[in-house]
């Protein structure tokens, strides 16, 4: 494409099918602790 550069694959929908194993780290969002966007977590799979 000439006008658009896509940075990633559109994978959220796919992740609904295979996701949800629950093994990944808990992610406190509060500033009092590790606050981070959930999106910075890594998947365990």
């Amino acid at each position, binding site marked *: 494409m000439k*006008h658009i550069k896509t*940075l*990633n694959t559109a994978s959220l929908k796919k992740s609904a099918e*295979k996701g949800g194993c629950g093994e990944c780290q*808990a992610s406190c969002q509060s500033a009092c602790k590790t606050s981070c966007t959930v999106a910075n977590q890594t998947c365990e799979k």
Partner: protein
Amino acid sequence: MIHKYRLNGYNIIMDVNSGAVHVTDDVTFDMVGDDGGVSMPDMEEQRRKYAGKYTEAQMDEAAGEIAQLVQSGALFSEDYYAGFAAKAISSPIKSMCLHIAHDCNLVCDYCFAAKGDFGHGRCLMSARIGKKAIDFLIEKSANRRNLEVDFFGGEPLMNFGVVKEIVEYARSLEKEHNKNFRFTITTNGVLLNDDIIDYINGQMSNIVLSIDGRPEINDRFRKTAGGRGSYDLIIDKYKKLVSKRVGDYYVRGTFTRENLDFSEDVLHLWSCGFDQISVEPVVTSPELDYSLREEDIPAICEEYEKLAKIIIEMKQKGERINFFHFNIDLDGGPCIIKRLKGCGCGNEYVAVTPEGDIYPCHQFVGMEEWKMGSLEDGSFDNDKKQLFAANHVLSKEKCSDCWAKFYCSGGCSANNVQYMGDIRKPHEISCALEKKRVECAVMIKAALS
């Protein structure tokens, strides 16, 4: 839904439901329609609107590329997740915050834990309660294998013997129950010594080292009981710990209204040799002078932008720096189920006090009405757990229309209670800052791609 914004010379379009992120030229950015749009705009109308600004050929090309992305599900993709509510059921508890010491050897003015004791008097957790907590976690975690235990306080090193006993106890049960414990600890550093450094470097999968940044900023709030600043007491200890560390760590600071130029603190910490850095907005009562207010939002957002630009420059030079809030994984991030659930407080995650009381998370500790049970009498309130399980991002009115929902996951329930009186009502200031951080994080990706 799309979210589009311009930052640092980049035109960015995020497709909320698919997670796709696009960087575009001006004509595409205009032709795609308004921020928040849920479907492709009428392209004839768009052409008329931008007729003087772009050539027909430019608009044709842009419209064609937009249509291609729509076709491939990477733009204006459908909201596929509404059915999730039915699946928002109780999960096994697999993560726990142990309040190992409701006591502290610093008296930081802004402490949300009321100088360590959470307003309930000083108290250390006994090894007996700690072991009960481990038993509880093993039992409630069902088939989850990875279990997290965070040693928190007050200051956990004030009760370090018990930390060790609990670690050893948990390790002794791993094999038999097929569990893998991941320990973390948050410390103010005052009591660190060589033995403790070696022990926690060996046992903890993550270590959080509290320090606010520049000496004068740190010492403004983080003081000993005698009123002395803590910077000189801790900095060399942190350097030593990090120099020997193989696993994750980060230095973590708090910014307040008094250091809205907190990028200087990030850079100070970096110049001390730390490359994993988190500096976060203070959580405190709005009446206090140093609390963050709505009128501070523009200045904070500007500071985030400034920091983002600095980090881009540093990374382009090959420097290592990881500012926690700009950390985002656009490709390999967590599955959508995790993104909907968020922090897991009260559902997958609980906090245990020195007395053995169970709360939805560390920030609820001391709010009597939110207590979930007790390790002493074996009580546990499953209705409350269910309430938190159902508290996913789409269940919050304001979040369900928010473009950041799959990055933020609905914010902090405890802050929502503190500021808004309702776990489902997000706190304005937190939302504004969260959105800005996501925008900066994505822009950094665009700049470095």
